[in-house]
């Protein structure tokens, strides 16, 4: 009995002194493992599968290896080249507008005036509601016969008759841009606003004491201070806009006559609409390469710029 308790106490002492602590890297593996596994199954493996499919002629019937045929087709297709250019134009235009509007919005909502708390809440709905639901509202706005935009345009004399915004090549494309900007601006605004509020007041006060005006303070203090958030936001927004699907699909389905077809819409139509999985997969790979290249160039340019201007 006493012998047993003695062993026990010895055992506890050993445990106490040499307490078995899970090594850091194993603990990390336990913590990250599930997320990693999930991503591998749901995203990485499908991506590998896409690479394989892109060398196949695949449909509902079966698969046949065709080498680079799908890619060659894309390289030769003038229509596809146009789609690439259109997608980048769509991205730069839309992201540019989102950033400009977001910056202006954040400045306005950062001003010390009564009611700004309310305004902050009021800009959020386009971001919070399902994109597809907001698009239903825009469908109505763009309606030529009964929509308010066409109505207001005629009332103001800008339009000389009903204008069906989504029926013409140019106006359909730019209508989609406007809706995309509408969806994306609130988030940019809120993040930039948050960044602006994080800027230390001391900086502004010091500048103010030195007689710096509001515009000068904005340019020389606010902008450099929010730069890290701004550039991250820009990249995030660019990728999101590049891959934007719901808005174009609901408003125009890529039409009229392909005028608002971006890469993602094209891919969806080919792969899901026409069951040409192989050709669709090749398009996906092109998208991944283009986006990867864009992100890389963006980072490199950014680093150069930051170094030149001596910012952190």
């Amino acid at each position, binding site marked *: 009995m006493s012998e047993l308790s003695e062993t026990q106490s010895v055992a506890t002492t050993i445990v106490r002194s040499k*307490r078995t602590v*899970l090594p*850091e*890297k194993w*603990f*990390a*593996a336990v*913590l*990250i493992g*599930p*997320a*990693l596994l*999930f*991503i591998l*199954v*749901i*995203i990485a*493996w*499908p*991506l590998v*599968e896409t690479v394989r499919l892109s060398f196949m002629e695949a449909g509902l019937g079966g698969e046949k290896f065709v080498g680079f045929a799908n890619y060659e087709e894309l390289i030769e297709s003038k229509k596809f080249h146009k789609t690439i250019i259109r997608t980048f134009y769509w991205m730069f235009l839309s992201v540019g507008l989102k950033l400009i509007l977001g910056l202006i919005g954040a400045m*306005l909502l950062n*001003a*010390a*005036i009564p009611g700004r708390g309310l305004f*902050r809440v009021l*800009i*959020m*709905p*386009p971001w919070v*509601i*399902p*994109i597809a*639901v907001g698009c239903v*509202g825009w469908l*109505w*706005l763009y309606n030529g*016969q*009964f929509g*308010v935009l*066409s109505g207001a345009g005629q009332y103001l004399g800008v339009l000389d008759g009903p204008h069906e915004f989504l029926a013409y090549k140019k106006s359909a494309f730019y209508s989609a841009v406007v809706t995309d900007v*509408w969806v994306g601006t*609130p988030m940019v605004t*809120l993040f930039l606003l*948050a*960044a602006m509020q*994080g800027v230390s007041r001391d900086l502004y006060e010091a500048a103010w004491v030195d007689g710096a005006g509001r515009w000068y303070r904005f340019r020389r203090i606010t902008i450099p201070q929010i730069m890290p958030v701004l550039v991250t936001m820009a990249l*995030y927004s660019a990728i999101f806009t590049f*891959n934007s*699907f*719901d808005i174009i699909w609901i408003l125009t389905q890529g039409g009229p006559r392909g005028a608002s077809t971006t890469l*993602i819409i094209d*891919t*969806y139509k080919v*792969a*899901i609409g026409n069951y040409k999985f192989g050709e669709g*997969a090749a398009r*996906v790979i092109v*998208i991944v390469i283009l*986006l990867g290249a864009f992100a890389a160039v963006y980072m490199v340019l950014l680093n150069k710029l930051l170094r030149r201007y001596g910012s952190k």
Partner: protein
Amino acid sequence: MMDRYTKLQVVGLYAAIAVFMLFMLLPFVEMFMASLRPLEHLFRSPYQFWSEDFSFDAYSKMWETVPLLGRYIFNSIFIATSVTFFTMLFVVPAAYAYARLEFPFKGPSLAGFLAVNMFAGAVLLIPLYRVLRAMGLLNTYWSMIVPGVAFLIPTGIWLLRSYLEKIPKELEEAAFVDGASRMYTLRRVVLPLATPGMIVVGVTVFISAYSQQFIFAITFNQTRELQPLPAGLYEFIGYQSVTWNEMMAAALVGVLPVMVIFLFLQKYLVAGLTAGAVKE
């Protein structure tokens, strides 16, 4: 003093804000106006800014036109809530590891996670379709939840990691010295401290999950009863005509529950974003 504006400046600020708000809210105003008009008067050309026969009829008739409307509204919220729950389950431990621990392949694996942000759901639809089919998940709630979770894990890790990094390390070290195991420290010391951050990330994930279910719903789910609101709304587009007024009413009523919840949570969101942007 520094923040004082002249009268003219104040007027200018409010005017600019008004224009900004007009852009943000015009679609909602128009949706509401359209929902109030009887269908035959909706189709009046030229456009009328005002008509005398406004009524709330559409708000009661919409439930008959699309009998499953209530179900669609519920589905949307249910799917987004499930996505948030599972995403957080994966994100919290992983974000903690990236915020606090040192381990091999830390940088590359984090970069790998973030690279997922390069793909939208639309890019991987074909193989995802096959994966979900192989798992037998097509036409179930899971077919909309699983891809949603996968695409939100990286964002979640990224956001929560930077939040966790701001929590002082000393408390954990104290717990550790006192003999607490790693898991115990995480559960009892870190998580309570990280609650505000977790709410912020949770709300952000929920909003993304709620606003982006459309493409998964129309591609992976054919079961009508399980459709979320964005897909269900299209039932108002009939063979003969589109009941626009009811569709607008349904859209507004459909997002109302989330907007109400959001009104209460928006403080967390704004506060969280602000906290996240403050540099040490």
